[in-house]
């Protein structure tokens, strides 16, 4: 190749019809790497909450980690919350794999996933309203319980909105149909969130 300084003549050259970073392959790559980095960031976000849990539990200042009258909420409800979201994540994951080949089936899976997610949200709100303890009355455990569950719930709501938008785009020439990668790797995030749900279930209800 001849050494050729890049000069103004090179402007106005006809563009190649597409630059590589616009291809579906690159799109998929961006989605994959991006979602992994984002999950990593979210891991540290929740790690802080788990650190708070175990740190305060170990310190047990003023013997007030579990203030008088504070007990673990019903495990069944906690299990229901976690399972509903796990189902939602799983359904979406499965649907996203076949979104190109059988779009109709995928759509059904997506709708079911959304329903499960909303149910999870409803049950969580119900649990918040019937906790049996009031964070105002002190205690480390109630604080961490409210905080960790709340932080998780906010991300659940956000991901459900995004899931709904995926449903809307699962149509001929819709974004999901054209770029299935976006749905696939969003599925990764849902599964990760379900995993956090499982850990927090074990920690908050059994430890």
């Amino acid at each position, binding site marked *: 190749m001849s050494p050729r300084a890049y000069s103004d003549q090179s402007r106005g050259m006809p563009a190649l019809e597409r630059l590589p970073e616009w291809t579906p392959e690159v799109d998929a790559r961006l989605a994959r790497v991006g979602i992994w980095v984002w999950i990593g960031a979210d891991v540290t976000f929740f790690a802080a909450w788990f650190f708070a849990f175990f740190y305060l539990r170990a310190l047990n*200042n*003023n013997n007030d980690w579990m203030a008088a009258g504070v007990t673990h909420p019903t495990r069944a409800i906690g299990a229901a919350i976690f399972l509903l979201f796990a189902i939602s994540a799983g359904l979406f994951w499965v649907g996203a794999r076949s979104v190109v080949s059988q779009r109709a089936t995928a759509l059904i899976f997506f709708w079911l996933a959304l329903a499960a997610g909303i149910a999870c949200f409803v049950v969580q709100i119900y649990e918040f309203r019937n906790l049996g303890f009031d964070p*105002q*009355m*002190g205690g480390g455990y109630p604080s961490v319980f409210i905080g960790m569950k709340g932080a998780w719930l906010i991300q659940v709501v956000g991901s459900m909105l995004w899931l709904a938008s995926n449903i809307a785009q699962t149509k001929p020439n819709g974004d999901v149909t054209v770029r299935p990668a976006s749905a696939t790797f969003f599925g990764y995030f849902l599964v990760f969130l379900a995993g956090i749900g499982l850990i927090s279930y074990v920690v908050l209800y059994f430890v």
Partner: protein
Amino acid sequence: MSRTDRTHALRLLVAWAVLSVIGVVIAMQVHLPPGNQSQQSTDTTGLLQLMLVISTPVFIGVVLFILYSAFAFRQKAGALEDGPAYHGNFRLQVAWVAITAVIVFILAGLGISGLAATSSGTNFTSSTQPALATASVGTTAADRLQVQVIAQQWYFTYRYPAYGGVESLHLILPVDSNVVIHVTSTDIIHSFWAYQLGVKADANPGVDNLAYVTTLHTGSFTVRCAELCGIWHGNMVDTNGAVVSQADFATWIAGLQKAGATQVLPPYQPFYFPSPRVKGT
């Protein structure tokens, strides 16, 4: 390594050696606080002195190199020629890393030895809790004067559990004695800083934070708060702390007990949990 390289290096080396010697000599003349009122402040002064001496040649070397290259390695006026294409010298890099590492480990060793103390040790070289000993060293030993520092917004008060838990406005310590200072707070975070004693320890609600001091000379010292604690943080100063002779201390504390200062005080505790359970009540 061409000849030019060698000449430049030689010049720099000589200049650096000469200047460093001068610098070190000067650095050794500098008298650094916090002074010698206690064993701990004496050792802190020595450590600061040592660090100053160690870092002087480093400082001189770097500044010398910057100035030298700024003048010796200039582009000719109006010219635009490239320098030699040196891409790196593995041996030099390894050597540099090794040297810095050695310095770092020497300093860290000094610091750790300062923190090290046997559980029976009397003279700690740092006022912080001994890191390599079981926690709460000597908090029960009879040969140590136990003093509690109670930080509150915005004043330090002091209790002497061995004397009926009397409480005082100022910190008075006997000379030539090993003191264990228990720092705690009744509201938010403060930091107990007895400057001339070389003692600093945060005061946290519900925590008994230990500091150790061995008084060597009589004289007054300043106590102030070193952690932002609200509007009067800057005013949380007491210049009336004092190290006094054993006899003076005995008479002072006796008078304090006679004054009945303990009549309204609660029993002595290692720390006090401030009350309100719900905010605002």
